């Protein structure tokens, strides 16, 4: 059992579990949080899960947890674990079942006051055009050959097929395409599950949210991102749907034997991994990249459908309204990156599970027009609360393998939320606060109630004060389309 006494408080927001805490730890574990968020993390199994990740072969630096950490399966959600290459490992559980689950932000050129009279129609049109909920299917069905093109090209397929602009790709992590994708390593079942799910939101914590830009903290940076106080913005939160789930499942199942073959001993079977450079490791990496590209394409198609919905409703009403892409980020992904560790450049496989890449200014992977600023980071709050736009920093490169938090982080179990909260009452309460809700499942809505989450503003304050990302703008919801 872990308690506060097991931590060394290295500074106000840095809590360290020394490597001596457990004999199988290969590196110390580190939590970035204030004391209240540490107390919250101690209420579930997330910190023992963090310690478990410090036992992975090749793990380097620290096993890291962000202030939004909460219990997952295998890896905690809100974790960053880097494995040194060559010799290190890749773990499908370190990415999760929803490979490249992420967030896209579109900023409108219109003010909320202009759009408010049409908001209900916009929300219901988006709800009709963007299939959501359990087992939802998209409007497009792909043959395996065409699907493979999407898996290899990601958002670029959408550009070639009239559903993206060059600016959309420019403002997407990895420019909307991971280059190492190889669909030969994607199972028949995963193909089957992906054939009709492009352009769907799914269920669980996924959503489309129409927001108001409530506050801008850094005017100059925000205006370069196209973000202006009082304007409308739209967030899309979803991932790689059944295709990604199946790829993760295929490899977690297969790796149960792989770890035995490589003599890898682990404290939890969901942490199964393979040496990155092995045949098994490479096959997962190629398949994971396919799912990542599918997710980029999925958010791109949803963005296209949302733009069509706005255009349809606002035609002849608001002249020149446009939804321009601010950025699109992944928060479940494994990436090969180079980082400075103790003065040396080291190649690593960085697992971010419920954490966001937050590269600072000067990074060569950023689009030219943002290179002097750093990478935009999108932090969705819980339903009915604020969301944030941040920027990556050099401090993140130094402390956290260029990573930051990914959201508010859950506090209450889904079972408890369903017991304590009635979905219909919650919908009515939010409506009385001026937030429209479109949702298929009222029990699903109750599970995602704001009370079930930590305070996102507190989480963001920690990463801002630590300097691993900088607050740029705060968004507040005016309509939520729930998966």
């Amino acid at each position, binding site marked *: 059992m872990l308690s506060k006494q097991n931590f060394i408080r290295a500074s106000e927001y840095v809590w360290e579990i020394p490597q001596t805490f457990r004999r199988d730890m290969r590196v110390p574990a580190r939590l970035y949080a204030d004391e209240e968020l540490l107390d919250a993390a101690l209420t*579930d199994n997330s910190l023992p899960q963090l310690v478990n990740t410090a036992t992975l072969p090749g793990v380097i630096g620290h096993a890291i947890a962000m202030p939004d950490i909460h219990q*997952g399966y295998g890896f905690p959600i809100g974790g960053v674990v880097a494995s040194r290459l060559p010799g290190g490992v890749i773990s499908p*559980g370190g990415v*999760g079942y929803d490979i490249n689950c992420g967030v896209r932000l579109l900023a409108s050129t219109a003010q909320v006051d202009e759009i408010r009279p049409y908001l209900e129609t916009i929300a219901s049109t988006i709800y009709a055009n963007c299939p959501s909920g*359990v087992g939802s299917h998209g409007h497009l069905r792909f043959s395996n050959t065409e699907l493979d093109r999407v898996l290899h090209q990601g958002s670029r397929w959408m550009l070639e097929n009239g559903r993206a602009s060059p600016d959309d790709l420019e403002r997407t992590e990895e420019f909307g395409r991971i280059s190492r994708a190889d669909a030969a390593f994607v199972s028949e079942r995963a193909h089957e599950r992906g054939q009709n799910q492009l352009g769907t939101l799914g*269920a669980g914590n996924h959503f489309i949210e129409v927001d108001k830009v409530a506050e801008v903290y850094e005017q100059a940076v925000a205006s370069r991102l196209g973000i202006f106080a009082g304007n409308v913005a739209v967030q899309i939160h979803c991932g790689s749907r059944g295709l990604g789930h199946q790829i*993760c499942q295929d490899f977690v*199942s297969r790796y149960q034997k792989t770890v035995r073959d490589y003599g890898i001993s682990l404290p939890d*079977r969901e942490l199964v991994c393979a040496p990155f450079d092995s045949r098994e490791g490479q096959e997962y990496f190629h398949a994971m990249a396919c799912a990542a590209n599918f997710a980029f394409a999925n958010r791109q198609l949803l963005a296209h459908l949302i733009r069509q919905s706005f255009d349809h409703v606002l035609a002849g009403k608001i002249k020149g309204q446009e939804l321009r892409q601010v950025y699109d980020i992944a928060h479940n992904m494994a990436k090969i990156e180079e980082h400075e560790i103790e003065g040396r450049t080291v190649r690593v496989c960085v697992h971010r599970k419920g954490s966001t890449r937050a590269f600072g200014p000067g990074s060569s992977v950023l689009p030219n027009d943002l290179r002097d600023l750093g990478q935009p980071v999108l932090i969705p709050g819980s339903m009915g609360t604020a969301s944030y736009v941040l920027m990556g920093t050099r401090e993140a490169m130094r402390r956290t393998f260029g990573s930051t938090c990914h959201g508010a982080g859950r506090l209450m179990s889904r079972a408890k939320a369903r017991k304590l909260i009635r979905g219909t009452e919650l919908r009515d309460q939010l409506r009385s606060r001026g937030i429209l809700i479109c949702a298929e499942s009222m029990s699903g809505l109750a599970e995602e109630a704001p009370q079930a989450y930590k305070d996102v503003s507190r989480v963001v304050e920690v990463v801002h004060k630590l300097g691993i990302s900088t607050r740029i703008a705060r968004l507040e919801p005016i309509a939520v389309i729930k998966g």
Partner: protein
Amino acid sequence: MSFEEIEHTADRAFRVKGRDLGDLLVNAARAMHALEGVRFAEGKSGTLDLEVDGIDAESLLVNWLNEILYLEQKHQLVCGNFQSYELSGYRVRARVQTHQRSNYQADIKAVTFHNLKIHKTPEGLEAEVVVDV
């Protein structure tokens, strides 16, 4: 009670019991359906044959549940009546009845191996299963 939901912060989890491994598999499938809020629709039913194996009892349990999830999503139906099965080592063959579904509240992405251990108890076997939602 052969199964009950247990608390999990981000996902869903259940504790399941069985007289033996076969009974545990049957009850785990029922538990998963209970979490999904599945209801059978009235009307025509059919059958499906399942064949699943694992390298040990835990992997058989996970693979069995994931196979049911896959088939249900593929055919847009619900499997029921899991009693007709043959278990040989860590391989199970089963013929299940299939039904149209009238209600389906929660989407389970996958069944995980997280801290999964099938324990022997005086009454038989017990396990805690975490599913990703």
